[in-house]
């Protein structure tokens, strides 16, 4: 079968990929800059082709709880929103984590706090990787930096969510959501049948057959001893994810004197600055974490032994930089540069920062 190539916005790519993945349901509530996700789904009408449900809920809270219900029955279900809306979903995300349910959440970040601005931001890094909701839980966090990755990470997000029975989030931003690029659409997978779900997700609530004990899905456990057991099981799973699922891209880091760490759309802008620096003979490398949790701490610690300096560049006041500092544990000075509130730096601006910090 020949490749299907399309020119799509990042948001549109998410919608196309969800249908092609064989997702069973999308529940959402519109908010800029990600409304095209639901708009595209509504235009493509997958309920007529694959049978996928697309529903505009009455609120973000309703949407995430619809996801909770769908996930409990073993379905591949998702929701999407932007920063203020994702804040509203945090309770539901904590419940998904506490009940060990697979689900995909998409946050196309905008500037905050509060309603903030509709322009791009990465200020929800902490919320995604440190647990925006309550309790000791972790969210598998994928940071796409191209429209292609918006599509691909729908697959990766769902696959990891089901592999580990854990919610996953695509942490994108307004740039990636709004821009159009060439996308090679991932291969179509049929939606799973009830029988397939029964065999792949024996925990799912599908109606109890005779002779089987009832499946119970809950995050509530009033016995502290049992609740501690549950928590220890979650933690063991998180360590397993940290062992197996770290993803990153290292560009020109091997011989670098200075290493930029950046994720998402900003990594693209930093890549241009990195190329400009190299053209001027300044040996700069770029490390792009693709999974923000699990974070590529060991990789960064290894590079810290080789380079003279590390700088984290983010669209926030300094969030990922804390994880980098933890990773290098004081062995090297880690600098930070950020723009706030929806302002996006240009490649020139970043090159100037590199020169000012390291060349003088």
């Amino acid at each position, binding site marked *: 079968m020949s490749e299907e*190539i399309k*020119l799509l916005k990042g948001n549109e790519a998410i919608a196309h990929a969800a249908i092609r993945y064989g997702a069973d349901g999308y529940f959402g509530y519109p908010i800029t*800059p990600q409304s095209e996700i639901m708009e595209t789904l509504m235009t493509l009408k997958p309920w007529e082709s694959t049978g996928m449900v697309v529903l505009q809920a009455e609120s973000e809270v309703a949407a995430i709880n619809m996801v909770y219900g769908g996930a409990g029955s073993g379905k591949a279900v998702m929701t999407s929103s932007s920063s203020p809306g994702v804040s509203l979903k945090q309770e539901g995300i904590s419940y998904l984590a506490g009940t060990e349910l697979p689900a995909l959440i998409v946050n196309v970040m905008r500037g905050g706090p509060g309603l903030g601005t*509709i*322009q791009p931001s990465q200020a929800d890094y902490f919320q995604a990787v440190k647990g925006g909701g309550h309790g000791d839980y972790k969210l598998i966090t994928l940071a796409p930096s191209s429209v292609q990755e918006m599509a691909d990470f729908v697959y990766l997000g769902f696959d990891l969510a089901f592999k580990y029975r854990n919610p996953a989030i695509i942490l994108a931003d*307004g*740039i990636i959501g*709004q*821009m*159009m*690029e*060439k996308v090679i659409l991932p291969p179509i997978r049929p939606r799973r049948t009830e029988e397939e779900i029964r065999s792949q997700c024996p925990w799912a609530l599908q109606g109890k057959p005779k002779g089987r004990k009832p499946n119970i899905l809950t995050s509530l456990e009033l016995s502290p001893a049992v609740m501690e057991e549950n928590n220890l099981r979650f933690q063991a799973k998180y360590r397993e994810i940290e062992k197996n699922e770290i993803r990153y891209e290292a560009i020109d880091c091997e011989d670098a004197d200075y290493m930029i760490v950046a994720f998402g*759309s900003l990594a*693209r*802008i930093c*890549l*241009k*600055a990195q*190329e400009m620096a190299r053209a001027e003979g300044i040996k700069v490398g770029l490390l792009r974490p693709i999974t923000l949790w699990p974070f590529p701490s060991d990789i960064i610690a290894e590079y810290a032994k080789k380079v003279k300096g590390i700088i984290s560049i983010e669209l926030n006041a300094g969030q990922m930089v804390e994880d980098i500092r933890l990773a290098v544990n004081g062995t090297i000075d880690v600098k930070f540069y950020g723009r706030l509130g929806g302002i*996006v730096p*240009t*490649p*020139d*601006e970043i090159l100037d920062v590199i020169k000012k910090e390291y060349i003088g």
Partner: protein
Amino acid sequence: MKKEIIVAGFGGQGILSLGKILAHAGLIEGKEVTWMPSYGPEQRGGTANVTVILSDDRISSPVLNSYDVVVVLNQPSLDRFENDVKPGGTIIYDSYGIRHTPTRKDINIYRIDAMDEAIEMGNARAFNMLVLGGILKVCPIVNTESIVNSLKESLAERLHKLIPENEKAILHGMEIIKAEQEI
């Protein structure tokens, strides 16, 4: 090969569509493409711009601070982006409502009277296709056949009857663009 282009003007002038048709034509020719709009509380009459990058190789930043080709369709955009043309690059401006024309000596300057022409044609909606024709004349980054195919894929089926008209406007745009300074 890599071309970094920005088109800037008023919202409602069809700038984003122009950029999309250009990007799609690049895709048809197997290029890497990025189309980055200014997005925000945009409205008809406000300012809008779109960055289009066409390249044979992986594209890094979708956000740029200098461009090979700058196309400005009103005075505020000309004032804002003239200095962002790379030395040796190209600026194309529509003369409608322009009081201060470009002054740089190190760039190519082209004028296209697309707004006047569209008014004369009695078809204001031809404006962006006239401009696209002008761009393709001085920067033939994709061929006309790809543009026509791009129109087919970019326009909804019910609008396909307008393709010949658009094609004519593009070809006409190629004729009416004038060189004011070539370096």
